[in-house]
């Protein structure tokens, strides 16, 4: 419509001009009569004086004049100036067509159909016949109407095809299995969103504030930053920043029991930038991943249960015993803190042990207990009620049950209780050997004694090699390369019962090497070290003693961090530390609660393992020392008496 209005307003007079007929003002009436008689369709003639129109003689008017009495003689011989109408209407060729209609219709009724004279620079150019003008106008209107009708039809079909398209896009979105929604700077969800959104949020979401919509599914810490991030996004002028802001939004939440992944994209809206949110239900995916990881854990557990059956049975019994000891200690111990520290160490040690044997559930449960005891230890006032709560929970928890059940589900129930090995107590075995010795010759006695020792003793190398699987597993968890694990040196046969407290605690050294000592593969390559690193156990026998040197080729102990920690924990003052030599400083590593790791992981970082290892060494009349060189590595030397 608008288009046509424009055309008609701008259309010029020129389009309607016909050349018309003219006479000079000197001509007489007969000449004009001749013109009208020779051209039946001629409506009128324009009278010119030197090219300038001065009058108009319309045919009807002319013959009216001539038909009066004496008209012919009166006007026939006289100049046309006597005949002509001088009140003429002139327009310029460049005037708008509108002008014609106005001028024409403002005339007296009798003159309505008079020519309108068209000039160009005041000179005659032509005329507009009102009759022909009206015919032309009506033709044009018809054309315009047809055009309009066509246009209208087109628009209608556009609208319907748009509707169709919208519907098909909507169908696509509704059936994509993902939620799509968008919002602008006012954070109100726009009405175009896919039906999956309603399923996810369990309500209609249009015209809701997006933040209010999702806030219930995030904790307070996240909630407070959501608004700041979105405000910053909408205020941002730099393109690259915008994606940075959106990527700060938390990508995952549990919404109505389903794990939902939130993807944010910047889109261009009509009035400015908008945010599009794509919601994907990843519940199944997460469950599958979890199940897969559980399968892997179960596999490792079963392999351990098969290959290390007797050690595991021993460990399970030790753990039960240790818990009973702890509980007993509580009954008799008046110092609550002392008890908790002991309990903590016990749990910490066994957490490591069970990790070694892939008892993952036990490890996790013990980690939770550790956290609870730790927070009690950190509190200023320790309530008896709180300690008893932990003890009762530990008694009820059946900490090992899930892992044992898992193993027994594959290996048969009672796998851990009825060992196929003959198991007799040491005292009973001693009696049996005494009985045998009583009936054999002296020469044979030596052989029997050796056999007896061999039964009780194992090669230390074999025992140390048992740690290999644990190291492999742990390196994987820490995303470090697999280090080479080497056991070398003398063959020393030991009674593992005597040394088991120390041997079990060696795990803390391996953990520290993997977690703190050995660099990542990338870092090692940069330092021109072999990518994976090496952990070496070297055994030396020296008369009635033996030593184990456990070394790694990692980055060494960070003495500065150790010192800082010692000051922070209030164990030493900076003045005291300044007077210590290197060995004394390294010894800080054996102090309870001193870990240089910033956060506590399930792997290491409590700073308790090293102190229990040292305790156990001292208990056996042994010693432990550590030496370390920046970027070269760390070496622990354990020296122990050899008991037969």
């Amino acid at each position, binding site marked *: 419509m608008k288009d046509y209005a424009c055309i008609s307003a701008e259309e010029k007079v020129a389009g309607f001009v016909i050349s018309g007929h003219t006479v000079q003002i000197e001509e007489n009436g007969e000449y004009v009569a001749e013109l009208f008689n020779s051209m039946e369709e001629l409506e009128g003639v324009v009278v010119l004086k030197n090219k300038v129109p001065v009058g108009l003689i319309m045919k009807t008017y002319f013959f009216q004049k001539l038909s009066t009495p004496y008209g012919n003689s009166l006007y026939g011989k006289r100049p046309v100036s006597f005949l002509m109408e001088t009140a003429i209407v002139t327009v310029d060729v460049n005037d708008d067509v509108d002008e014609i209609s106005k001028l024409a219709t403002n005339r007296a009724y009798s003159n309505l159909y008079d020519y309108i004279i068209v000039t160009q620079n005041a000179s005659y150019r032509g005329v507009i016949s009102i009759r022909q003008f009206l015919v032309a106008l009506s033709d044009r209107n018809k054309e315009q109407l047809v055009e309009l009708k066509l246009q209208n039809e087109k628009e209608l079909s556009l609208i319907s095809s748009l509707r169709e398209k919208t519907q098909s896009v909507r169908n696509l979105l509704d059936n994509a299995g993902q939620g799509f929604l968008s919002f602008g700077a006012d954070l109100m969800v726009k009405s175009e969103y896919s039906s999956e959104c309603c399923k996810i949020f369990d309500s209609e979401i249009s015209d809701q504030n997006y933040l209010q919509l999702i806030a219930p599914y995030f904790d307070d810490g996240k909630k407070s*930053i959501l608004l700041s991030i979105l405000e910053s996004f909408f205020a941002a002028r*730099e*393109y*690259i*920043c915008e994606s*940075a802001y959106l990527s*700060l939004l938390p990508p995952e939440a549990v919404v109505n029991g389903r794990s939902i992944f939130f993807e944010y994209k910047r889109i261009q809206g009509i009035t400015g930038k908008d945010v599009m949110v794509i919601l994907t239900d990843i519940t199944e995916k997460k469950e599958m991943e979890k199940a897969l990881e559980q399968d892997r854990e179960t596999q490792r557990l079963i392999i351990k249960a098969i290959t290390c059956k007797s050690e595991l049975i021993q460990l399970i019994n030790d753990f039960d015993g240790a818990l009973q000891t702890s509980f007993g200690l509580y009954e008799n111990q008046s110092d609550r803190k002392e008890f908790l520290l002991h309990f903590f160490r016990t749990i910490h040690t066994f957490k490591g042990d069970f990790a070694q044997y892939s008892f993952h559930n036990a490890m996790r449960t013990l980690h939770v207990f550790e956290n609870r005891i730790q927070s009690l230890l950190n509190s200023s006032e320790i309530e008896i009620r709180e300690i008893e709560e932990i003890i009762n929970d530990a008694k009820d928890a059946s900490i090992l049950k899930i892992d044992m059940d898992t193993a027994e589900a594959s290996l048969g129930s009672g796998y851990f209780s009825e060992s196929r090995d003959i198991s007799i107590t040491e005292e009973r075995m001693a009696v049996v050997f005494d009985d045998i010795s009583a009936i054999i010759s002296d020469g044979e006695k030596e052989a029997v004694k050796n056999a007896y020792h061999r039964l009780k003793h194992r090669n230390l190398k074999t025992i140390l090699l048992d740690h290999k699987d644990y190291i492999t597993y742990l390196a994987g968890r820490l995303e470090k390369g697999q280090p080479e694990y080497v056991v070398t040196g003398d063959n020393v046969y030991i009674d593992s019962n005597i040394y088991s407290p120390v041997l079990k605690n060696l795990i803390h050294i391996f953990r520290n090497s993997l977690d703190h000592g050995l660099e990542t593969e990338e870092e090692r390559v940069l330092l021109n070290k072999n990518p994976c690193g090496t952990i070496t156990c070297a055994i030396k026998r020296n008369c009635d003693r033996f030593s184990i040197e456990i070394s790694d080729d990692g980055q060494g102990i960070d003495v500065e961090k150790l010192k800082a920690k010692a000051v922070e924990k209030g164990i030493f003052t900076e003045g005291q530390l300044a007077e210590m030599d290197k060995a004394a400083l390294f010894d800080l590593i054996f102090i309870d609660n001193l870990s240089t790791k910033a956060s506590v992981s399930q792997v290491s970082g409590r700073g308790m393992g090293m102190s229990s290892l040292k305790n156990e060494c001292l208990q056996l009349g042994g010693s432990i020392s550590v030496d370390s060189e920046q970027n070269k590595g760390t070496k622990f030397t354990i020296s122990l008496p050899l008991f037969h």
Partner: protein
Amino acid sequence: MKNFMIVDDSMMIRMNLKRIFEGCGHKVVAEAANGKEAVEKYVQHKPDVITMDITMPIMDGIEALKEIKKADRSVKVIMISALGQEVKILEALNNGACHYILKPFKEADVIRMVESVITTPETAAI
């Protein structure tokens, strides 16, 4: 080819980033181990792109960012941050950092980020 400055208190990280940037054909014109050093070296070397650790001794990355941005609005600063520092990152972005990289980072992610920062026009087409 762009000129880079790497700001991080860990020598290991600096070496690592330097190798990555040089591998992409860029030039590392300066390195700094804390914010104060970064501001000083910035004035000297006027790099095009800066990678800035957030937690550093003496002067942290956010302070250094503010100082540098005060002197030159056009320099592109990419923050390097550990996980869980969203609030700090937001503060950095609001103070003119153009993006961020989370530690521990993968080489491919760093390259992608740097390329996108270099090639993306500063202002969105409206």
